[in-house]
């Protein structure tokens, strides 16, 4: 019984296997291509889902990713107009839109073929950077640069059935051994700033001191003024008292004060009086008559 059934079962299995090669699945993120005898493209507009084809040996299906993919250009050397070496990373985003053309152009190499498109992008960016000096490059509008590079590469990409989605400049740093030179420049800048800060501190300190001293001078001057006025008042007061005292005898006032002055100025141990023979003070020393 089993030996009778075996060929039947084998034939059935073979048939099933053949039938399974007549069905193919296209995922939501895939593009499919049906090839007749491994060469001519029969159909290329398959929606996602289950599709039928002629069995193995006749039709062949190729699946491609329809999602946006990125191609990175890393550490691309650039040189500005003033010969500053820079390095840049560029991301190129692309998508297969015409699968038949992409299949024809890229073939088995697949996404690696996008390198030719990337070359265009690289050249475009390099040319834009070479047109500007360092400051110009730093202030470059990276979005516009990306758009320009994208435009430049659009044609070659379209020839491959590829649409370019975006070109992004993700990094732009000093290239080659320029890092140390940039660092040195920064160090110099920092040193200058530090010097400036210290000078500013000294200046401010001097200003504060000068202001304080000016204020001090002002305060003291005001005090001196006030003191002088007070002393003037004292003089006036004393003079007034004196004048009142001597109001009836102005001549006696002079006499009195002059005697005071003599006493104060002459009557000290420092003075040496040289007395002549006619000195009135000594007249009684000479004779009781005074002559």
């Amino acid at each position: 019984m089993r030996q009778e059934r075996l060929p039947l079962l084998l034939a059935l299995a073979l048939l099933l296997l053949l039938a399974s090669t007549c069905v193919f699945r296209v995922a939501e993120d895939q593009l499919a291509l049906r090839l007749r005898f491994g060469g001519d493209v029969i159909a290329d507009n398959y929606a996602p889902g289950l599709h039928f084809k002629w069995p193995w040996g006749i039709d062949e299906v190729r699946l491609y990713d329809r999602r946006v993919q990125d191609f990175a250009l890393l550490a691309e050397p650039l040189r500005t107009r003033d010969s500053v070496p820079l390095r840049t990373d560029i991301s190129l985003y692309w998508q297969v839109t015409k699968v038949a053309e992409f299949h024809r152009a890229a073939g088995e190499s697949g996404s690696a073929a996008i390198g030719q498109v990337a070359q265009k992008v690289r050249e475009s960016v390099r040319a834009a950077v070479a047109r500007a000096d360092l400051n110009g490059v730093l202030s470059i509008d990276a979005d516009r640069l990306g758009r320009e590079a994208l435009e430049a590469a659009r044609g070659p990409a379209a020839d491959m059935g590829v649409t370019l989605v975006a070109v992004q400049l993700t990094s732009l740093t000093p290239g080659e051994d320029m890092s140390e030179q940039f660092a040195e420049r920064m160090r110099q800048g920092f040193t200058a700033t530090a010097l400036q800060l210290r000078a500013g501190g000294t200046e401010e300190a001097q200003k504060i001191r000068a202001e304080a001293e000016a204020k001090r001078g002002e305060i003291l001057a005001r005090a001196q003024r006030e003191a002088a006025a007070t002393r003037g008042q004292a003089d006036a007061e004393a003079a007034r008292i004196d004048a009142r005292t001597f109001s009836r005898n102005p001549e006696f006032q002079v006499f009195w004060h002059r005697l005071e002055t003599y006493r104060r100025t002459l009557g000290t141990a420092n003075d040496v009086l040289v007395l002549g023979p006619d000195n009135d003070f000594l007249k009684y020393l000479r004779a009781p008559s005074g002559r």
Partner: protein
Amino acid sequence: MAWNNPKDEEQGARRSGAGGGGGWRGFRLRLRGQGLALSGLGIALLLLLIASTCYYQVDDAGRGVVQRFGRLQRVDAPGGHWHWPWPVESTTVVNVARAIELPLNSELLTSDGNLLEVNLNLQYLQADPVKALFRVQSLDAVLRDAGHAALRDAIARRTMASLLTGAREPALDEGLRQAIQRRLDVFDCGVQMRSAAVAEIRVPASVVAAREDIDKARQDADKLASDARAYAATLVPQAEAEAQRIVQQAGDDKRERVAKAEADAARLAPVLAEYAVAPAATRNRLYEDTMADIYARSRKVYVDLKPGNGNVVYLQLDKLLQPSNAAAAGSAATGTPGVSIESVPEGGTHSAAATGPAGAAPAIGPAGAPPANAAPVAAPKPDPRLADESRGRERGVR
């Protein structure tokens, strides 16, 4: 790499499906060996196994994206769901509600050509699970590139100084978020930027020392200024105190002066009264008192020199004045009238007389010597009235 998580789950699901298949084959072989008695149970178990691959759970933050033969079928909400077993349907659970974090680190040039290292933290949502799954090959790469590009752009627009100051502009973060979102929108990949936050901006390690010197310089400058301020803070109050002292002194002087004037006036009142009665006598008396005082306290040189007698007296005035300072203190202190010509130290010792020009000049007697005849005399003037007069003088001063 959160993007990969749903993929991993999917692959896990597929693997478990394949494992089920292997178990099925082994089971069947065993059935063969033991006969058909258990075949009914075997089929039931097999169905159960297949059924178990048809059930899946979608967590609260996720959405189940179901593909039937690769074609998008539906998107399941959180909860338990059934789908057809492999190879008909497959489900990928995408996290839509939980923010995914992506830290970026980059070395960038500022607008003034300085190199900075920046850490940027991104948070994003895969708001649209279908787009997140099918629009781009690597969501992670797209986000990284968009983040780096936006950051590079933002840093290149700013100076190093503005970026390094402690208080960074809050607009920087929000601007970055928007710039990244704008870049993502080009891809229509269903990603929503929750936030972009610059976590750290630092200078490259090789210039850190120079950079730190700025902080030190700032401290130095602050110190200088604060020292000056401290100086000013003491100087002004000192000046005010000094000013107060000056004013006060003037006030004191004034009071003293006025008091003295009033005292003088009071003292004068009797004198004036007397003067009114006997002017001449009062004047003479006052004059004599004063003269007595002056003569008593002064040193004196008597020169008997009549015009035309032919003698020349040589008086060394500087010598006369020289000892005055030394003598002054002594004589003032003792109250003794110092009377001398030559430098005579206090106490009347005569040693100096030998050095003086004694021979040339007419005899010059030291203090205390009796007056010589017909010669210039320098004599002490013992004054019997001394006591009275000095009293009178003191009265006069008062």
